[in-house]
């Protein structure tokens, strides 16, 4: 019977990590539904970007208040997790604070964790106030109702509870308190429990310890269902983000082939296609499978902070377009497609829905000025503009469904080489006017 806690612990760990691994597999499968894209160039620069933007939080601190608070939570999260390593070893081996044998360094470590835990707790409270009391505009756009709104608050509650449990666990650990080393914060909490019997204090300590590790495992598994995935995906996302100038939009290869053929005088326009010819590519995107895997990774990485939307000129002037919603819709539709595949033994069965119209409306797509403010604003290098452009491409090249005025503009370019109805032969008239 002595081994029951160890067995229970191992089981909890196995289930917690196993279920998470299963969802990571699903995540990879879903991202893999996107079109191929070769991103194997410039590795050194990519590592640098990841170190600077994800690890170094360089774009977060452009907004100093939110940035600083976020750095606290982020550093706290990473550093305090060293403690989790000890908890896991203790749990599996049945030891207690196995690292404490390293001597005074242990006190320094735990002391640091305790200070960070308090800082994280305070930062999370401020975050909660910014969302729910001050009601910062970017947290209250139309796409931030129901689940997205609750999700954000659940994460904050989770963090508050985990930090509290960590401090209570230390405060009620009589052995640890007697070491008088590292209990920089918990020594002030310990007296709150002094009127309890030693047995009760021990019981509280054990409960806090168990709830803390179980809470972490639950939180780990919550990630897949939450906007909070960014704590993992920010790293690959900043690694794979475009290194090109923001103004450079990709040239569609399929179009280049056709244009070259049209311009080649030796091609027989009436030739039958070769027997093994590929099915012509669909131009642009109407659903998530038409997007590339990086765009889908972008969607899972988005943590719905709304910096993109708050910088968007269209959104600022009351248009429906919100770059954050573009990312959220893409993820929601991708999840729906993934569930469809799971339910149909690995193949997607047409559900009569798509990303275009069922999620993202044309009105949103046509409101974009392609100014790149959203791309610049994103702290983890997400590119909502590339999705907007690919969907416009579908509307124009597959559906001929551009707004009339844009059709006029394009007809003018086709006929006289300018977006307005002026004769190309008059192009130099300004010289003599």
């Amino acid at each position: 019977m002595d081994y029951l806690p160890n067995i229970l612990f191992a089981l909890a760990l196995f289930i917690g990590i196993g279920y998470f691994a299963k969802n990571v597999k699903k995540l990879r499968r879903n991202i893999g539904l996107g079109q191929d894209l070769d991103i194997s160039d410039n590795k050194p620069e990519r590592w640098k970007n990841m170190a600077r933007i994800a690890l170094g939080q360089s774009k977060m601190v452009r907004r100093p208040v939110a940035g600083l608070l976020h750095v606290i939570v982020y550093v706290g999260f990473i550093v305090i997790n060293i403690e989790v390593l000890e908890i896991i070893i203790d749990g599996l081996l049945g030891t207690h604070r196995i690292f404490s044998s390293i001597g005074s360094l242990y006190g320094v470590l735990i002391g640091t964790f305790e200070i960070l835990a308090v800082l994280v707790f305070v930062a999370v409270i401020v975050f909660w106030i910014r969302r729910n009391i001050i009601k910062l505009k970017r947290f209250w756009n139309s796409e931030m109702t129901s689940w997205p709104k609750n999700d954000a608050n659940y994460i904050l509650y989770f963090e508050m509870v985990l930090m509290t449990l960590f401090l209570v666990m230390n405060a009620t650990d009589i052995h640890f308190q007697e070491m008088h080393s590292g209990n920089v914060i918990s020594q002030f909490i310990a007296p709150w429990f002094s009127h309890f019997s030693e047995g009760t204090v021990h019981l509280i300590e054990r409960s806090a310890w168990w709830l803390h590790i179980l809470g972490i495992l639950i939180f780990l598994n919550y990630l897949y269902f939450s906007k909070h995935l960014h704590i993992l995906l920010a790293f690959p996302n900043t690694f794979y983000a475009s290194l090109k100038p923001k103004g450079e939009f990709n040239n569609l290869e399929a179009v280049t082939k056709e244009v070259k053929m049209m311009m080649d005088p030796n091609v027989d326009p009436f030739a039958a296609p070769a027997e093994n010819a590929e099915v012509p590519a669909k131009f642009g995107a109407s659903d998530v499978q038409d997007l590339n895997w990086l765009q889908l990774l972008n969607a899972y990485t988005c943590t719905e902070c709304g910096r993109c939307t708050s910088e968007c000129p269209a959104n600022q002037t009351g248009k429906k377009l919100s770059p954050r919603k573009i990312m959220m819709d893409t993820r929601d539709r991708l999840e729906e497609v993934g569930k469809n595949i799971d339910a149909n033994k690995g193949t997607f069965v047409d559900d009569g829905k798509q990303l275009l119209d069922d999620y993202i409306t044309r009105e949103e797509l046509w409101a974009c000025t392609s100014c790149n403010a959203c791309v610049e604003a994103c702290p983890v290098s997400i590119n909502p503009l590339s999705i907007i452009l690919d969907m416009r491409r579908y509307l124009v090249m597959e559906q001929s469904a551009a707004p009339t005025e844009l059709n006029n503009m394009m007809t003018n370019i086709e006929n006289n080489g300018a977006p307005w109805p002026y004769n190309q032969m008059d192009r130099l008239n300004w010289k003599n006017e």
Partner: protein
Amino acid sequence: MSELLNVPTMADFMAQGKQPEVLFWVGCAGSFDDRAKKITKAFVKLLNKAKVDFAVLGTEESCTGDPAKRAGNEFLFQMQAVTNIEVMNAYEVKKIVTACPHCFNTIKNEYPELGGNYEVMHHTQFLKDLLDEGRLSIEGGQFKGKRITFHDPCYLGRANNVYEAPRDLIQKLEAELIEMKNCKKNGLCCGAGGAQMFKDAEKGDKEVNVERTEQALDMKPEIIAAGCPFCNTMMTDGVKAKEREDDVKVMDIAELIANAQDL
């Protein structure tokens, strides 16, 4: 005045068996839009004054395809691109300068993959080089001490990280350069990009150009400086909407320098 303009074409140069120093890509706005044509002429006067051996394509120039591409018509864009590249490669063009950030961005970034490799400069970068090389000089003159704010064109600034050249030029005018709340990386769009220039805006509670003009007017400028013919139109309309056209002028950087020179 116009008889002073010397605007040779690439064909003229070819006929003489010569190559110009640079091709001036005028762009559709610069060729046809009444307001933008003034910018084109101001820039040409500066080129003439600095004795730059330049040429234009004239009737052989055609839209770069930028608005078609941003609207989603990749076909039309690539048709335009391939045609323009054929013309420029036939003339063995090496270096291009343009007063339009959209042409600048498209030719610089999107043409190389389709076979068009050129050194491309925005006219503010080119003018700055002329000043640095001593081929052009500015006497402070009429803009000394004037409050000027610069509106960053998205396709020059954020899209291509060119923020300093236009500002350096304003400072050389000995004017007082004042920055808007949103500038450089955080510059707010004028509302014309992504083919919006050619259509009405979607339903909202404000026009983007009015929002941006309000940001500019907050700085109490005497002049709003622009570096893009489309931004120029949008900001000019914005100033009119705010009924401030009598005391606030919208001018391209090339016009500021040409005016300082009394050209």
